[in-house]
């Protein structure tokens, strides 16, 4: 396949960026999207140009490093991570526009790489449980209800990629936040800090500059892990409960 790529290039956080056009020929449709970008970078290297910076790590859909807005879709036209997207989803001769995640809270570091540290700080504001150190407790000593455990497991699959933010017209991180709140809130271990967790994480979410949710649902449609919208309902409910408990 021969492709025309329109790629966002930006030298650094403070530099002016812009779209650059590149031609990549001889792409196999069995390549992943990132392998296609590797080819582009080899080309650029040979020409003595700076390669395009993009985030990736596991390349097997589990770490959440890869990002990219591909032709207007977070992680591209299929619902998966960019590393798991294959070139057979595109056609020969196609022009593909590649941009970084766009959000005030995700500043561009370089080219297509953005700083998702805001997610870390949201986690630090309550997305954990406190446990005593020492030997691990007996696994079965705390009974967990099966359906709750299943729900917790399902939403715990969130890999923190940020596609929900990238896809949201309001730049909200509510799906991510809801996934974390639901994950810990459904388990017995998450109960003691449940109220302070939702208050702390929501406040940090807003402080980071993410927008408010209007329940449009573009987040869940883009989420590579299929986190459902009901986690946002859970987030809102827990928030209300916590507010009432506080007053």
């Amino acid at each position: 396949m021969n492709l025309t790529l329109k790629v966002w290039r930006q030298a650094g956080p403070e530099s002016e960026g812009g779209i650059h056009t590149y031609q990549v020929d001889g792409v196999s449709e069995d390549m992943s999207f990132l392998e296609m970008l590797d080819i582009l970078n080899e080309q650029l290297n040979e020409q003595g140009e700076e390669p395009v910076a993009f985030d990736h790590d596991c390349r097997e859909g589990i770490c959440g490093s890869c990002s990219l807005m591909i032709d207007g879709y977070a992680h591209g036209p299929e619902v998966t991570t960019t590393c798991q997207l294959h070139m057979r989803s595109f056609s020969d001769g196609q022009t593909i526009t590649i941009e970084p995640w766009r959000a005030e809270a995700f500043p561009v570091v370089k080219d297509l790489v953005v700083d998702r540290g805001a997610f870390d700080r949201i986690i630090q504001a309550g997305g954990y449980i406190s446990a005593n150190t020492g030997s691990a407790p007996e696994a079965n000593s705390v009974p967990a209800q099966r359906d709750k455990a299943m729900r917790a497991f399902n939403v715990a699959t969130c890999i923190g990629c940020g596609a929900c933010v990238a896809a949201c017209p309001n730049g909200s991180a509510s799906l991510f936040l809801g996934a974390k709140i639901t994950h810990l809130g459904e388990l017995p271990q998450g109960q003691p800090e449940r109220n302070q967790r939702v208050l702390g994480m929501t406040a940090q979410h807003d402080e980071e500059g993410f927008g408010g949710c209007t329940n449009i649902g573009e987040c869940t449609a883009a989420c590579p892990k299929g986190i459902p919208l009901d986690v946002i309902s859970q987030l809102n409910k827990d928030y209300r409960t916590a507010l009432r408990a506080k007053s």
Partner: protein
Amino acid sequence: MATTTRSPAKAKAAQAKKAKSPRTTILLKLTMAVSGLIFIGYVLAHMYGNLKAFAGPESFNGYAEHLRELGEPLLPHEGFLWIARAVLLLSLVVHVASAIVLWRRAGKARPVKYVVTKNRNSSFSSHWMRWGGITILLFLIWHLLNFSFGKVNVKTGETGSAAGDPYTVMVQSFEVWWLTAIYLVAMVALALHLHHGTWSAAQTLGLTGTAKARRTAKAAGGVLAVVVAGGFALIPLSVLLGIIEK
């Protein structure tokens, strides 16, 4: 989780970013949901009252009069009406103010726009809440000037009590084509607003914790949109078709 480390100095500064404001996005959305539900109750009652037009002038005018006597002697004459007006006005201020704050926030949350964006799976109505809300607000102001405070009979040009009884004003107004057009456009905006707003409010209030509850809330939005906007629109359409006449 996927993160890119900043330079240490920047990381420190970001760490120090501690949340302070209690006026969170969720709190603002909660006030929008509650005020929105008050509006839904109101438009349902209002539409029911309007449909009395089909029962003739006595019934319609009697209804308007009845509203003024509601709650007597417990409340003074028009007491109920004034309480309702106060609640609605307060709701409107809160609803619109929150909408503006959240709208500005959303704008700031994405300062650099995408060159290409596509929607995957979201309703038209969900993208029209803000402009549709403004349409409703403008209509509301016009509507109150027209039928309540101003009480203008657009057809005869008379105002105040000379404009005629409520039934006369209504029928003669809808004999004016552009007034009917404004009204119908507003009903489209209302239908869109109710379609997304009903489900959105349920979600904001934390009532849609399962896929089934979510489907129910979305269906309720569809039903309310059709029933309310359709119910309101029946009156001008009936005047147009001569089903309701002077």
